[in-house]
């Protein structure tokens, strides 16, 4: 206890509870450190708490804390009752909360209040009944003293000498080489994080990213209901989220949603004279144009189409494209226009892709060029 001193009175070791007060209930702390580098300490009045001087108040606090702990016990019991007794699917109206899941609210309330009461009781105990007199402890600098530093350096030197690290040049150099190469297998092993299914090294990432499920003559179907579309079914101002006809077969074959993530398109119809430009001559069909649904910024699906302005807005980063003007960017962080899919009708009168996308869809990548 050499570096531990209570701030109000060293003479009364029973800090906190002892009768350290004078007549008006105030006692003065003693200045402790006035040496160089220290702030001049000052006398601070220490006011004892009600529970320090009034045994009745102390009893009251004791009961209060015990009540909190009892509340915790009660809440745990209620928690178990709620778990067993309330049907998890019932909803109940609770004021303030609204129509909410009854069991979830009951479990959270009982458990939460119970745990809270334990903490509140403990804190109240510390605040009201444990000593509230501040204690001073000295700090010691982190720096080792000169003796220790010398000893450490000596030990290190001795080790260096004994190992001969400085002496055996060949060992040293080969060890460095070995350690430098040691992590390579750990990195090489990561290569098969991506392994094309057909064995071998397969197509390169940029080849994969540049292809979609769209082929020449591929019928266009609606997303969600997968029915082929006749041009007259899309009114002027109409919007259809669409996919290639074979999308579900591809998905079943590949067991993933990759094809969907690239092939999704939007069909919109405007008056033919509203189309100011397109990415290719005659890529529309009687005012129906098809654009990729995948944003060229970072790849969010994008279908916030305003049929009067022909603007297409991305909900993620607000890139805006003009579908009446070749899908060019008119606002926001996207740098590339939306790729257009050339469309026409087949002999049965259904909308089809006239040819695949002529540029990679989705976000830019290094090799895209």
């Amino acid at each position, binding site marked *: 206890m050499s570096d531990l001193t209570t701030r109000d009175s060293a003479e009364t070791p029973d800090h906190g509870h002892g009768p350290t007060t004078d007549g008006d209930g105030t006692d003065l702390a003693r200045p402790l450190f006035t040496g160089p580098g220290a702030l001049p300490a000052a006398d601070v009045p220490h006011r004892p708490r009600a529970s320090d001087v009034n045994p009745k108040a102390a009893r009251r606090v004791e009961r209060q804390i015990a009540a909190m702990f009892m509340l915790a016990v009660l809440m745990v019991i209620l928690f178990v009752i709620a*778990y067993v007794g309330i049907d998890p699917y019932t909803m109940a109206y609770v004021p303030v909360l609204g129509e909410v899941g009854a069991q*979830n*609210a009951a479990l959270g309330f009982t458990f939460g209040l119970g745990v809270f009461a334990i903490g509140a009781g403990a804190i109240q105990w510390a605040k009201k009944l*444990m000593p509230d007199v501040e204690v001073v402890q000295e700090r010691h600098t982190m720096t080792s003293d000169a003796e220790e530093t010398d000893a450490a350096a000596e030990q290190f030197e001795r080790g260096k000498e004994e190992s001969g690290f400085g002496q055996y040049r060949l060992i040293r150099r080969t060890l460095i080489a070995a350690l430098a190469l040691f992590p390579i297998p750990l990195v090489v092993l990561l290569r098969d994080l991506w392994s094309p299914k057909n064995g071998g090294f397969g197509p390169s990432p940029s080849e*994969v990213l540049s292809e979609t499920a769209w082929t020449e003559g591929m019928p266009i179907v609606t997303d969600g209901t997968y029915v082929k579309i006749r041009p007259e079914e899309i009114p002027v101002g109409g919007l259809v989220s669409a996919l290639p006809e074979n999308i579900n077969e591809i998905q079943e074959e590949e067991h993933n949603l990759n094809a969907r993530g690239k092939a999704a398109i939007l069909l919109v119809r405007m008056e033919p004279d509203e189309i100011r430009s397109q990415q290719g001559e005659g890529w529309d069909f009687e005012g129906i144009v098809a654009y990729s649904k995948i944003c060229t*910024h970072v790849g969010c699906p994008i279908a916030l189409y305003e049929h009067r302005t022909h603007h297409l807005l991305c909900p993620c980063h607000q890139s805006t494209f003009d579908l009446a003007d070749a899908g060019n960017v008119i606002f926001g962080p996207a740098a590339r226009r939306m790729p257009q899919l050339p469309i026409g009708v087949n002999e049965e009168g259904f909308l089809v892709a006239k040819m695949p996308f002529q540029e990679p869809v989705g976000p830019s*990548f290094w090799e895209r060029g």
Partner: protein
Amino acid sequence: MSTVEKVGGSVATYVDNRTGSNRFLARNLKKVFPDHWSFMLGEIALYSFIVVLLTGVFLTLFYKPSMVEVVYDGSYVPLKGVMMSEAYASTLDISFDVRGGLLIRQMHHWAALLFIAAMSVHMMRVFFTGAFRKPREFNWIIGVTLIALGLAAGFSGYSLPDDLLSGTGLQIARGIIQAIPIVGTWGAFLLFDGEFPGTEFISRLYGVHILLVPGLILALVTVHLMLVWVQKHTQFPGPGRTNNNVVGYPLMPIYMAKAGGFFFVVFGVITLIGGLVTVNPIWIFGPYTPDQVSAGSQPDWYIGWLDGMLRIMPNWETVLFGYTISWNIFLPAVVIPGIVFTAAALYPFLEAWATGDKRDHNLLDRPRNAPVRTGIGVMAITFYFLLFIGGGNDIIAITFDLSINSIIWFLRIAVIVGPPIAFLITKRICLGLQRRDREKLLHGYESGRILRLPHGEFIEVHEPLTPKERAVIESAVEAYHTPLPAAQKTDANGVRNKHYRRENLRAKLSHWFYGDAIVPPTYDEIEAGQAHVAHDAAIEAPLHEHDVDTTVMVPFHGGILHTEGEPATNREQLEERGGNL
């Protein structure tokens, strides 16, 4: 001695015989921690992390990290029969078919949000009070790393349910990885096992989320706390508090009860909120498919500033020798965050170098006493906040009936202009406060009471500072520093100074940091000033003698202090008391 104590004692002996634990306890149970509400912020972070760990273990028992498509057949009717990944289906099961599962899931999410929020606010406290200075620079770096890891933990968890919102977030993450020059495309293919979304990513992310990141966080938190323990906590200036002591309460019993109790309090509040307030209602968003999206797709709050930066960035992209560099993504999503985190981590060293300050600092700075640092902090917060606004621009647009385009243009300008303005204003406010502090130290408080002295002079009575106020304000004396001297091109002998450029930069930075600070009074001046105040008080004291019977003091015409029922002028009062005021 009771039986319990006997058993406890013999257990302690048993353990001590094998570990020497008593030596540790003897030294540490009395360890003193200073008390201040802002020292609890780090505790909130720690405790919410413990809640995250506990609830996370429960969730692993039910969650299936699989992207295999299944048909949902649980009890949430509006999704019955819908195709979805097993990950999403199992998260729905946790929410609806495991009793208490929704509570634990919501606790996990709220606690995670709180964990990062508390870390951030804790970091602000440490920054603005200069607690990162020597000897605590390592702990600052660990703290910055913990925040970065917190973001990783949060984002990976946000992505696991594989709902429409989290999948959109992953799609964006994929786009960002793909935008990294040279290695981006391959990196993305390796991480996702090919194209987006693939079938492997959720299970890979799961490992990262439940093992790698929390393991690192746990390790670093341990080191963080050990360093706090070894270095002892910093304290605010106050009576008797010096750079070489700790004034506070002992660990045993006060902090055992307070900190232990606070853990339960944090746990309890998180549980209450988990039970009463919805977070991330994934059943509303639906399963992820890469061709669907919801308006208002937002990341959780801590990613908001990064998303905001992505939103307000102009659309720059260059194609060079057939290769694409997406500045519009690479800069805001990779380069600038990298700079921000690096600058944050290195700040203690930059400041120490610029100021030439090599002392230990265990006594905290009041933010006003380091105006430039405080200005830098407010500048950073302004920058962050503007980007954060950007991250929610669509919600702000619809809530306040504004145009998205106007908000983005405003932010594009404000994010450049706003932080410097914030810096200047903050610095001015700090200097103003310093001036006022100086006045207080020299002249005490202005009481507003005017007194006319016998020879006709009017004085305003100043009241002395209380010891606590004085100690706090006086810390400005310790905090004050003169700038480094200007660098010399040649030394006294005319030899060229090889390090001139570096020294010159350093001197300029030092001047920038300290140059405008208000020179605080010396201790002698303070003593003299306070003595003067005491003298004033002594002059006024006789007037107060009458306070005992007549408590109402009224200012009288001519500004002379007048006690009711007393002669109205000083002269009359003087005469009544025999010429002795």
